[in-house]
């Protein structure tokens, strides 16, 4: 498995884990906090911090294990894979952003609710982006 395929796996798994950490956080689910909106922001920041730490540590470990691959620039096949994965993710981002805006307008959510919907769209498109990269790496291009 190439260095860049490994980093795609790391990013995808870290995204899934930290998204679950945010969504399944028990107090957030029960909304027992005195100020749920402020509390959910704290959980969001905690999830982002967790993502950054796991991502940095895991990628540093992979870089140390395969320094030559890590230093090599993207070749034409890898650039093609990145472009194809981005084009798939773009459709997901566009559809989910539009869907979230329509949903929040329909449900009458506040600004924070709208921001969360857009954030979810962004995270979802990132997941699709990295999942598509892995598929293309597995398939050859």
């Amino acid at each position, binding site marked *: 498995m*190439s260095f860049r*395929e490994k980093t795609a796996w790391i990013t995808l798994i870290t995204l899934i884990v930290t998204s679950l950490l945010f969504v399944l956080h028990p107090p957030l689910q029960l909304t027992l906090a005195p100020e749920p909106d402020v509390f959910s922001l704290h959980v969001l920041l905690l999830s982002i911090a967790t993502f950054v730490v796991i991502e940095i540590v895991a990628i540093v470990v992979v870089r140390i294990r395969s320094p030559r*691959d890590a230093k*090599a620039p993207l*070749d*034409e*096949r*890898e650039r093609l894979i990145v472009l194809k994965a981005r084009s798939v993710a773009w459709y997901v981002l566009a559809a989910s952003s539009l869907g979230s805006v329509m949903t929040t307008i329909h449900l009458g959510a506040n600004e924070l609710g709208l921001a969360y919907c857009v954030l979810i769209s962004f995270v979802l498109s990132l997941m699709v982006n990295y999942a598509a990269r892995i598929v293309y*790496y597995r*398939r*050859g*291009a």
Partner: protein
Amino acid sequence: MTGTAITNTIRKLRFERNEMTQQDLAERVGVTRQTINAIELGKYSPSLEVAFRIAAALGVRLEEVFSHDGGTAKPHGSGK
């Protein structure tokens, strides 16, 4: 992904050259080992530039490395 109609003899040519490894060839061509592997297996068709670089690294002409299986290609502007 389905394989391409372009076949190649990279594997044979590598073994004829002191069993050159995919990594050695990749370094000479300037791509990753995984890309050489994908080309060898017919999963990826390289650009013309990389194809020429592979031929040069193996010390042969382009047509000795790559060939097309899929019949005669229609030239641009040939109508139907």
